[in-house]
Structure formats: structure tokens, C-alpha cells
């Protein structure tokens, strides 16, 4: 069953095209990992998919309805974890959840039960009566997630739910996402952390500059670049290597320099390691060499020639 689909959706901010003809289908029971660098248009895509932002062209269909996709009836089935923390600082964790539960029409005993359950789910039962101002970043994030869960949505959209939090909270959240999937929730999960996608996603959609540039299962995507090899050199002074000299070597597809690291992607079996090494050694010292198994990060790199995240960006 198709939960949501987008056809030819275009969204402009002034003359800037934030979404460039997006086609997308989301099926029941999937965890879709939406991957893309800063400014790719992930949040904008979510905004148009949920009716939060109007769009310029195309159609959005939710739960089989394309005429009135954003009816209250449909909205009741959707949960959104916003990228920014959108909770009330002056209300306790419990009250925040009561508020959102109430907005979704939950009352009385059912609401009480649901609030308790969700607090448990995100591990904040002990903090139920505390104000979020007393919370750590990770706890606020968890409350932010909880606010999207009280009404038991069948379609959960999470916009970078783990940004800037400690590994423990992150694992907790990822485990939670898997548990939700096991209960039958369809999930659209946005992040720029590859490891998260590899851990939970059944399908990956890679976005860049307002377009979907690739989609498939994580294994499939990695398969498409299996005919490539990746070698990283740590060198003393990468500046001294003449521009374009590595690119000229037979079999080389892309070269990326970041700090003292030079990463080269070549066709599989091109046997050009020797040639690369001698060119580098001719101009500067080599401190280390590493060959790596390709991951989703490399898929993105191969497609765009850019890194998903800036090197050195904090985990």
C-alpha cells in the first residue's frame, strides 16, 4: 500500500528552486532514509509532503487522497518530529505531551495512558514532571520526538532527530525507531549520518540540490559502486601535488583533498595504485595509505563529487 507519493513537485523560494520536480513513493512498513547534505531540500520536501509549506507545481497524495491530502483525517495519521526542537519550555515534559495528545483529540484515560507510554518509550518517565529548561540536549530531543508519538501515527516523519546528541541517546532513538517499525509504523527518516541510515533504513533516497539523485536499498546502492576502489593517502603537503596530475592517471574517477588526506576513487582493477603513489611521492611525503570498503558516503561522493558532510564536522 502506498502511504504517500509526490509527483513532479516543485518548490521555489523566490527564484531559488528548493525542490526540483520530486517524484517519490512511500510504501507501508518501510523505513526510508532520506540522505542529503545541508541545504539539499530535505526539510522543504517534508514541509510540502505534510502540507506545512505550499508548493508551486505537482501533486502530493497521502493515504490515497490527492484532492484533499492534508485533511484533518489524514493529519491525524501523521507524526512529525521537527528538525528544530519545538516544545514548550514553560510546561513540564508531561504537560507537553498532554498538549500534543490533546491537539490530536485524545482525552481522559486514553490520553493519560498514551502519555505514560510515550514517556516510557523515550526513557523520560523519571523526568515527567520537570521543565525542559532543566533538560540536557539529548533529553530535549527525546521529548521532541515523544511529542510526535502520543497519537500513535501510522506514518512518522523524523527530520534529523539525532542531530547534536550523545551516542547513547542516539542509539536509544535508533532502537526506538526500529521498535516502531516492528509495530507497523511507516517511517521517513532524515539525516546526514550515514551510519544511522545503514543501521535502520530499508530504502535510501539520496537528495542533492533539490533533486533526488539516487534511490534503492543500502546494499543496492553500494553495489552500484562496487566496480570502484577507494584509496586514501595521508600526505605531508597536498598543495605541492600539481593540480590534475592524479586525475590524469588511467582509471581514476574522482580525487578529493581534505586537510592532509587525498582520496582517490578509481575503476575496480585498474591497478593504478603504483602510479598514484609515485606521482605523490615525487612532490611530497606519504604518511599513510588506506584502502576502504565503499559505503553510502562513497555513493554520494561518486554521484556528486562532494562529501556529504564537511570533514571535521562534529558527530
Amino acid at each position, binding site marked *: 500500500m502506498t502511504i504517500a507519493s509526490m509527483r513532479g513537485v516543485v518548490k521555489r523560494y523566490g527564484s531559488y528552486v528548493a525542490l526540483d520536480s520530486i517524484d517519490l513513493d512511500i510504501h507501508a512498513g518501510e523505513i526510508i532514509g532520506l540522505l542529503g547534505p545541508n541545504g539539499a531540500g530535505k526539510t522543504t520536501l517534508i514541509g510540502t509532503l*505534510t502540507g506545512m509549506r505550499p508548493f508551486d507545481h505537482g501533486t502530493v497524495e497521502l493515504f490515497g487522497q490527492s484532492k484533499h491530502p492534508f485533511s484533518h483525517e489524514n493529519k491525524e495519521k*501523521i507524526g512529525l518530529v521537527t528538525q528544530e526542537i519545538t516544545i514548550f519550555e514553560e510546561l513540564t515534559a508531561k504537560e507537553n505531551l498532554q498538549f500534543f495528545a490533546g491537539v490530536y483529540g485524545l482525552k481522559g484515560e486514553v490520553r493519560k495512558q498514551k502519555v505514560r507510554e510515550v514517556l516510557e518509550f523515550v526513557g523520560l518517565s523519571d523526568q515527567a514532571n520537570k521543565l525542559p529548561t532543566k533538560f540536557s540536549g539529548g533529553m530535549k530531543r527525546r521529548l521532541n520526538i515523544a511529542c510526535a508519538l502520543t497519537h500513535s501515527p501510522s506514518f512518522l516523519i523524523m527530520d534529523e532527530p539525532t542531530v547534536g546528541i550523545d551516542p547513547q541517546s542516539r542509539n536509544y532513538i535508533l532502537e526506538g525507531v526500529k521498535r516502531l517499525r516492528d509495530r507497523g509504523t511507516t517511517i521517513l527518516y532524515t539525516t546526514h549520518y550515514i551510519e544511522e541510515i545503514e543501521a535502520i533504513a530499508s530504502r535510501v533516497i539520496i537528495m542533492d540540490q533539490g533533486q533526488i539523485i539516487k534511490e534503492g536499498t543500502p546494499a543496492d546502492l553500494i553495489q552500484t559502486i562496487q566496480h570502484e576502489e577507494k584509496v586514501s593517502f595521508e600526505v605531508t603537503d597536498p598543495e605541492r601535488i600539481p593540480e590534475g596530475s592524479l586525475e590524469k592517471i588511467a582509471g581514476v574517477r574522482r580525487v578529493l583533498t581534505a586537510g592532509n588526506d587525498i582520496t582517490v576513487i578509481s575503476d575496480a582493477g585498474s591497478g593504478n595504485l603504483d602510479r598514484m603513489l609515485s606521482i605523490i611521492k615525487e612532490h611530497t611525503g606519504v604518511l599513510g595509505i588506506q584502502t576502504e570498503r565503499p559505503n553510502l558516503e562513497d555513493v554520494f561522493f561518486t554521484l556528486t563529487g562532494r562529501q556529504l558532510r564537511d570533514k571535521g564536522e562534529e558527530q
Partner: protein
Amino acid sequence: MTVFKFSLKRSFSNKTNLLLLTLFPIAFIFFPEGEYWPVLPYGYQYFGIVLLFISIRLTTIILVDRAKGVVKRLAVAPISYGSYLCQNLLAFSVILVMQCAIVVYGGVLLGVELYQPHWLMLLYVSFSFTSLAIALAWISIFRSKESAFLIYMSLVTLLAILGGLLMPLQIFPEALIRIAVLFPTYWLNQGMSWIASEGSVGDFILINGVLWLYTIIFMILGSTRKIH
């Protein structure tokens, strides 16, 4: 009515607000009477300023919700923006009307000479809604609550002076008095003079009518602005 309920809760959530919304208006009952001016005791003359002040404190809740993206988050929930706004305004109105009642009927209870307290109550309620509408329109042009509040307070001071709430209008030059008609505070002032002088009911309706006209205009200005 979830938004309504939590809006009340949020309004009373911090100590400053709690104090402002309870003890502060009560204190105004005990202000002395003036000799020649104003017609009502000072506390009642100044109460309009209190209403303007409390209105911005209350509507700041909406400003914060907008700035923090809560309003956007609610756009995904099965609640319309109109309903969110109405429920908040309803909660603020309840609070403001309570303030008016405390001041007017508290005064009556303590034997303060208010001439026609029920009419005064009506006048204050009208002006409460005008204040609320002004505050709503005001916060719709700001992103930060601090700057919204600071500039608003200067505006309120100006409104209070030019409308004749802080000092008698007669001391101003003729030209200024003519401009004063444009300020809602002037009409509140007129209303209070009416209370003490027993004019015709028609005049009183006109005065309240002007306040309601302002209310409608500012409400429209304030509610058409949706989300940043």
C-alpha cells in the same frame, strides 16, 4: 480546547506573570484620588496602561510559538491556525476580563467611589479587547520578544500621554488635542469622564463603538500574519 487550557496554564507558569496577573492589579485599587484630576482615582485612571502592558505579556506566548516553530509544527496537526489563534485569544480575554472584574468590583467592595461601576466594567472590557488586538498586531511584526516588548512599552507610554491617561489633555497645545482623537487611549479617557459625569447612553455606546472599531482593525492586522 487543549490550546485554550494550556494557554491559561502557560500564562500563569512563571512567577513574574503570576504576580503581574494577581497582586499587581489589586494594588491599583488602593491608589489615592486626585484633587481636580483625574475624575476617577489614579489607579483607575492608569488601569488602561496596565491592560496594555498585560496584553503584550500574554500575547508574547504566540510570538514565542511562532519564533520557535511550534506554530509550524501545529500546521501538521489536525488543528487550524484560526482555531489555535482563537483559543489563545480566548484564554487571554478571560484573564483580562478577570483583571477588570478584580479592579472594579474589588473597588466597589472596598468602598471606592466609582460612580457607575457596571459601566466602568464594560468600558474596561472594551478597552481590554482593544489592547489585546493592538498587542496581537504588534507581535506579528517582531521575531524577538525582547525587542517587541521594549519598543511596545515606549509606544504605550506615548499612547498613554497623548491619549490623556497620564496627565490632563488640557495642558497640551490645541493641535495635539485634535490628534489625540486618533488614539484608542483617548477614547478610554473619554469613557472614564463619561462614567463620572453621567452623559447620555448614546455617547457611551459611541465611545465603546470606537474602541471596538480599533479592536477589529488591529485583530485583522494581527491575525492575517501567519507564520514566519
